């Protein structure tokens, strides 16, 4: 607002002098601001999400994680297929050969191990489903750990199920073994949490 307009308004009102008006305006400007309660943002976020106005960061992180995992897996596969490249000890042990071939061959023991890992993974999934639903109140660190584990399992599932990704039996075993390990951690964590919540 211009000074000229201000004077016009003041003259029109004929109530306050210029000095009084200035003091009033200064006083109003100096009035303190108040922060709304913290819960207000959560209400806004919930409503906006319910209306589909906001993107969910967790989902985006998951996509990023999957993409990252896909790139990492592609690099690992390329390295494993290079002749003369040393393979990780675990894969070597799984293959059961002292001289690890560039592309590991399927053997009866390999397929048995793979089947055993798949059964174990399935069993862990059942155990996870049997645990009562997670309590509403959780520590932020617990949520982050669970979310991280779920993301990593999802990334492995993506690798194992994507039709464009071809894996040797040894590589499959490596992924399944990791899946079992992560599932085991997730079940343990969820179980401990359910126990804590029951008290």
């Amino acid at each position: 607002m211009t000074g000229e307009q201000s004077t016009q308004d003041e003259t029109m009102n004929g109530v306050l002098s210029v000095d009084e008006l200035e003091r009033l305006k200064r006083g109003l400007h100096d009035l303190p601001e108040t922060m709304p309660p913290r819960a207000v943002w959560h209400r806004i976020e919930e409503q906006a999400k319910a209306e589909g106005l906001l993107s969910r960061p967790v989902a985006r992180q998951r996509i990023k994680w999957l993409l990252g995992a896909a790139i990492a897996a592609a690099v690992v596969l390329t390295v494993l297929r290079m002749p003369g490249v040393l393979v990780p000890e675990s894969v070597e042990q799984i293959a059961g050969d002292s001289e690890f071939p560039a592309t590991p061959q399927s053997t009866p023991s390999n397929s048995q191990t793979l089947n055993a890992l798949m059964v174990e993974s399935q069993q862990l999934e059942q155990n996870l489903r049997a645990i009562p639903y997670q309590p509403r109140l959780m520590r932020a660190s617990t949520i982050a750990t669970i979310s991280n584990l779920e993301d990593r399992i999802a990334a492995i599932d993506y690798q194992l199920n994507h039709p464009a990704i071809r894996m040797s039996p040894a590589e499959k075993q490596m992924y399944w073994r990791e899946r079992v390990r992560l599932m085991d951690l997730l079940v343990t964590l969820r179980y401990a949490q359910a126990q804590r919540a029951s008290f």
Partner: protein
Amino acid sequence: MSRFADIQIDEGVVKRAARGDVRAHEIIYRAFSAPVYSMCLRFTRVPAHAEDLVQETFVEIIRSISAFRGEAPLGSWVRRIAVTKSLMFLRSAWHKRGQSLDDDFEDTTAGRPESHGVSSNPEHAIDLDAALASLPSVSRAVVWLHDVEGFTHKEIAGLVGKTESFSKSQLSRAYQRLRPLLDEKSKKEAAEKAVNKPVLGSC
């Protein structure tokens, strides 16, 4: 100038918000929630109503930020939404009570006016806040919009859905009510000055 105009938001944040990025919206909320809430609280005087208005304002921001072209500062745009929501609320309250905006000044606010917060000059801030709170809702809104946010009478008339004369008359009557307070305040200030004035030449 209004506090809204002083708040600067990075263009990248606005772009991310336009894509529905929740973190970008949180940044905008953190920046503007205090001025929006304070204004809504001064208009409504009821914290629960002010919270609802903040929610409505920011959901509207989330809903329509993709249409924000950046021709005016973001603060002005946010303020416009908050003002519109607040005035809509005041109007709806009027409708519920079967009154018109013209009756506003006759509806004198009974009881002790609520006061919110303190400032660097607490006594004066509380006095002024209380005096402002004692005004009827629409007059309070007109005073705030005109004297703090810098809206013209024409703009206020458009927002309230009344004539410019209505806005001017509301402001004039509000000043009449606030004047005794200003007189009292200036007397207090003069008395304080006189007390604190060093006495020269004594002894």
